[in-house]
């Protein structure tokens, strides 16, 4: 059951901490700026190459934006543990399931709310800058890419909030997960032996759904399936976080 006061309180929490606001702003900015900048710098030569994908290029900023979104998600729940605020929060909302669900709802909802306009803006900006090499909204695969990009933000937020709740701490969550997201996972895609496994990781699957116009021969599922794969990981993380929150003393 949704409680409007608890939603309002969680919204107030996010709004009143600078690091939370700025990490989300940084995510939006990187997505909307980096891809179009690269698109603007593209010439006919690059566009003629075999692996040219206008959507992949336009959404290139997601590689960096996702780190900011992950930081936002980890700070929003990990910050409670780091500062001890979790005890004050649970004194105000002692029903732990209610606390957890509303916290996730607000952070994920906010991610989605900023992601929808950002995804659209990034698409139109980047495709326009690509001129004749760009695609139009409605061309095969473009609608799917934009929808999946918009959903990537809230799914990633939920995934990282769930994992941080499982750790009950900010530092290990950040120290372990950010290098994976930023380095290990994308680099492993270049390694033939690892690629078959790594492509099923949540960030890879989500990005494949959001950043591919033409199917990649190295990926063994269709682009649409990327999002359900990411959502399955997210569901497991959210459930794991709930189990830990429910059973531990605060």
């Amino acid at each position: 059951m949704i409680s409007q006061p608890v939603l309002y309180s969680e919204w107030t929490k996010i709004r009143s901490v600078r690091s939370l606001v700025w990490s989300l702003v940084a995510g939006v900015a990187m997505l909307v700026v980096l891809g179009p900048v690269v698109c603007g710098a593209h010439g006919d030569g690059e566009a003629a190459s075999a692996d040219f994908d206008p959507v992949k290029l336009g959404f290139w900023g997601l590689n960096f934006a996702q780190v900011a979104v992950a930081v936002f998600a980890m700070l929003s729940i990990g910050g409670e543990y780091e500062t001890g605020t979790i005890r004050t929060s649970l004194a105000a909302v002692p029903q732990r399931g209610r606390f957890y669900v509303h916290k996730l709802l607000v952070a994920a909802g906010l991610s989605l709310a900023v992601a929808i306009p950002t995804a659209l803006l990034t698409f139109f900006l980047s495709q326009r800058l690509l001129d004749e090499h760009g695609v139009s909204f409605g061309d095969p695969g473009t609608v799917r890419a934009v929808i999946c990009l918009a959903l990537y933000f809230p799914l990633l937020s939920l995934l990282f909030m769930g994992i941080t709740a499982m750790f009950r701490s900010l530092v290990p969550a950040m120290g372990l997960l950010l290098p994976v997201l930023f380095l290990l996972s994308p680099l492993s895609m270049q390694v033939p032996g690892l690629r078959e496994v790594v492509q099923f990781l949540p960030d890879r699957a989500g990005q494949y759904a959001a950043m591919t116009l033409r199917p990649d021969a190295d990926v063994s599922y269709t682009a649409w399936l990327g999002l359900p794969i990411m959502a399955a990981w997210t569901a497991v993380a959210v459930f794991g976080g709930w189990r830990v929150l429910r059973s531990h003393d605060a």
Partner: protein
Amino acid sequence: MTTRAESPPTSLIDVRNLTKRYGSTVAVDQLTFRVEPGRVTGFLGPNGAGKSTTMRVMIGLDQPTGGEVVIGGRRYAQIEQPLRYVGALLDPSAVHPGRRARDQLLVLARSNRIPDARVDELLEQVGLASAARRRISGFSLGMRQRLGLAAALLGDPRVLILDEPLNGLDPEGIQWIRSLLKELAADGRVVLVSSHLMNEMAVTADHLIIIGKGRLLADIGMVEFGVQYGRARVRIRTSRPERLEKALAAEGLTLTPVGGGTWEVPDAPADQVGAVAAREGVPLQELSLREDSLEETFLRMTAQSVEFAATGQRVP
């Protein structure tokens, strides 16, 4: 769902056979007591006695290993909008340092449908109105303590649970909290205040719950505590202690030196000591009655609890 938590007629804290273990450490051991409304109850014990643990269980942060705590007939987690019924100050540093003081209170108020105006009212009341828009990272411990108190009072609760609220406050602040607590109690509220300093409680509390090693040592009125547990001793100054010592020993009393030609006779009526001295012809330069301070009585009591706990015996 959104209605205000009803205050049952008996709004009291009922700790029933509470046990809390962390691994092999027993923090609270079959603790049973009630906190009645209308008086300030001091929750006293040395550091590590289990006070904070008991209070954490009270507001549902920790799950008891055995027993339970009910407040006004319900467990804390069953209370809808609990801040409107129970106000707690457990750890004044359990706030986000990057948040402004007013925002911190708004977060709590909004979660329990307490109007925003109440936040400004309380910031004024605890003396933080001028710091309302400052980030908590710049707050002293005393200011955090005041902010924590404002958070506890936010919902105008019938029950107050305050863990060491006097820590970090200046004398003026301590004075202010004392009169506030007395007012709240006089208003018929349940007021439980923990401390590890007896002297602090002696002028604050009307009733005492004393625990040591997680067990109940005393559940007693402030006045009765001194009478029942306090010990009197007779202090004397004499030039011939040897003769007096022998004579007192014959009556089952002991003479112990306290330095500077002064001796004390524990647990003895002054007239008995005076009579013995006169009979034996021992000159006395001083004969006076000394009573243990409340602090001394408390320390003796809790020191015993450590011994008794070690041998598994119960303290009466």
